[in-house]
């Protein structure tokens, strides 16, 4: 009999302020161990494949500029996308917020004569809590991504944007399958290949008979009206190909001007996310194609706070994010607390700048869930200056709450100097091979001197580094 499953989410309260939630997470040694192991693996892989490209920095520069260009031309590109997708046979809908997007999606499912859907992993649908909404109106959403399936079976919440079950190791995953998957094979081992096989058998019939699928998209190409989904397992292909009806929920920031821009992003994304030269499967589709895949194709363009982010000149760069998760994997705070402590679907450094902007007035403590070490900025494939936005948001947030968070939160995470130093060092090493400029190699942490204040000056880049060097002595 395998041990009882205790989902991390049941221990770490979703609505607690970061310092409190982080403290709970820090008291979970297995969680920390699993995170350290997984993020360590991915950091090394990412550094390797990024290091293979001698034009990594020019690619990042281009990607950052394309995203800035998209933000500047968002209205025009959104309309161009709508026109081209519609001409290719897609139905394009617009949703101001989560509720509207969920309602449109639910209506399409019913019109298709279905009461359940298969889902491709998508951050946008997590953000709008589509599964919960569907359940409330009597529809069922089945996650098909392996990690999402694990989280759904464990009745947990995702803790990472790419690998939502990153906080479970193989033995725990085996236990979850064993206890919660009705058709789990007898004597299932914790071999990853055996676990993958069990997931294949569990979902196969559902894939082959599903009437409706729900997806997100990694990119939406304005020039052609195409959507792009990047994945590994083939569950994405199943959802995008087999059902008659396909609903894709796409944040307006996912637009790219032209098809050829994929030559930039499809080099950066797989290398930054799973540390592969290319992910196993990428699907590109444009409206509906007779005799090939879904004939009833819908795209829901989602705002849900994004235009608010767009209005902030400094903060809007958060909309450049391609959800690769590299910043989570190198973040010493994330590595020690995991994703649940952030209390938002976007955890880690990107969450710390995106969550408070998407939901103004909430998550004001998250910009303090960082030591401003800068590792996130260095790995970000679209060069989002996360430390800059963190400082910007700290200056805007309510100071009292901020101070409390700084004292109680970041400090608690970093209270054990030796562990902290090790985490920092690992993060830095992981990002070294492709680093160009003379950023610090090691950042021994002066634990006793840790202070963060609301009026930390916005440091110009070079000064920031000098400041760190100074602190190091």
């Amino acid at each position: 009999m395998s041990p009882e499953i205790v989902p991390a989410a049941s221990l770490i309260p979703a609505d607690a302020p970061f310092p409190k939630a982080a403290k709970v997470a820090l008291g979970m040694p297995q969680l920390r161990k699993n995170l350290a192991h997984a993020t360590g693996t991915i950091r090394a892989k990412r550094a390797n494949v990024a290091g293979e490209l001698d034009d990594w920095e020019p690619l990042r520069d281009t990607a950052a500029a394309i995203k800035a260009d998209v933000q500047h031309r968002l209205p025009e590109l959104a309309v161009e996308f709508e026109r081209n997708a519609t001409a290719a046979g897609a139905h394009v809908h617009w949703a101001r917020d989560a509720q509207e997007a969920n309602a449109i999606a639910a209506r399409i499912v019913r019109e298709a004569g279905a009461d359940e859907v298969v889902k491709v992993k998508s951050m946008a649908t997590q953000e709008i809590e589509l599964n919960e909404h569907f359940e409330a109106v009597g529809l069922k959403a089945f996650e098909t991504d392996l990690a999402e399936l694990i989280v759904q079976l464990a009745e947990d919440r995702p803790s990472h944007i790419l690998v939502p079950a990153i906080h479970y190791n193989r033995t725990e995953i085996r236990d979850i399958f064993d206890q919660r998957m009705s058709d789990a094979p007898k004597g299932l081992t914790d071999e990853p290949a055996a676990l993958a096989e069990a997931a294949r058998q569990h979902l196969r019939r559902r894939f082959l008979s599903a009437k409706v699928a729900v997806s997100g998209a990694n990119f939406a190409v304005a020039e052609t009206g195409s959507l792009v989904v990047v994945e590994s397992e083939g569950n994405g292909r199943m959802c995008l190909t087999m059902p008659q009806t396909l609903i894709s929920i796409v944040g307006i920031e996912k637009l790219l001007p032209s098809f050829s821009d994929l030559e930039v992003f499809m080099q950066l994304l797989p290398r930054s996310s799973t540390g592969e030269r290319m992910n196993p499967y990428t699907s590109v589709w444009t409206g509906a194609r007779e005799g090939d895949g879904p004939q009833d194709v819908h795209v829901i363009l989602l705002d849900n706070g994004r235009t608010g982010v767009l209005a902030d000149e400094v903060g809007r760069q958060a909309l450049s994010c391609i959800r690769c998760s590299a910043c989570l994997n190198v973040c010493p705070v994330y590595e020690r607390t995991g994703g649940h402590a952030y209390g938002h679907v976007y955890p880690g450094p990107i969450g710390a700048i995106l969550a408070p902007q998407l939901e103004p007035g909430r998550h004001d403590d998250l910009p303090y869930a960082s030591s401003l070490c800068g590792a996130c900025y260095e790995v970000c494939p679209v060069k989002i200056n996360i430390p800059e936005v963190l400082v910007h948001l700290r200056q805007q947030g309510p100071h009292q709450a901020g101070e409390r968070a700084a004292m109680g939160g970041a400090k608690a995470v970093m209270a054990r100097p030796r562990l902290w130093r090790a985490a920092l060092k690992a993060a830095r090493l992981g990002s070294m091979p492709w680093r160009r400029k003379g950023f610090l190699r090691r950042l021994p942490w002066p634990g006793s001197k840790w202070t963060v204040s609301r009026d930390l000056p916005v440091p110009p880049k070079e000064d920031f580094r000098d400041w760190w060097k100074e602190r190091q002595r």
Partner: protein
Amino acid sequence: MSATPTAREEILARMRRALDGAGEAPVPPREYRRSLETGADITAMLIDRLVDYKANVHHGLASIAAALGDAQRVVVPADLPEDWRLGGAEFVPDTELSTADLDGMDAVLTGCAAAVAVSGTIMLDAGAAQGRRAITLVPDHHVVVVRRDQIVGHLAEALPMLDRTAPQTWISGPSATSDIELQRVEGVHGPRRLDVVLLED
């Protein structure tokens, strides 16, 4: 449907308001590579990358039979060249086969639109000898034939070879997952076996 146009107008208005005074859009620099060094052996590189991601590589038309292994029923796009249908298997042309029919196939044999050496990526765009997406997805074994002139070094060279608005699948190795401890493990929902047959001219 009445709420939808309103949402559209409102979102566009919010965007315009947010961008009020945002200035000119930057022009992206394009300093990155668009091809490999001249003289790079792209075929050797493609093979290396395919093998790295656990695909099997075969050489020459005659090796199609071996690549199909002991598959008995093999689905093929209706326009697959006759001289590719080699070996003892029964070749079933895809004339609107049902999902259940496809699920009963041991393998699928197709061509491709392009192959990228640097990442070991085979690209399908529903063009000649490729068929619809479902036939290369449901069977557990995909044998794909790549002609020498379809191999390019770099992703940027491959994109112009694709029919941009056709349904595309870019394939880099067999189905895999990195969801367990972030290690790549082959074999989830897509074909678990990928065999690539290279035709040298």
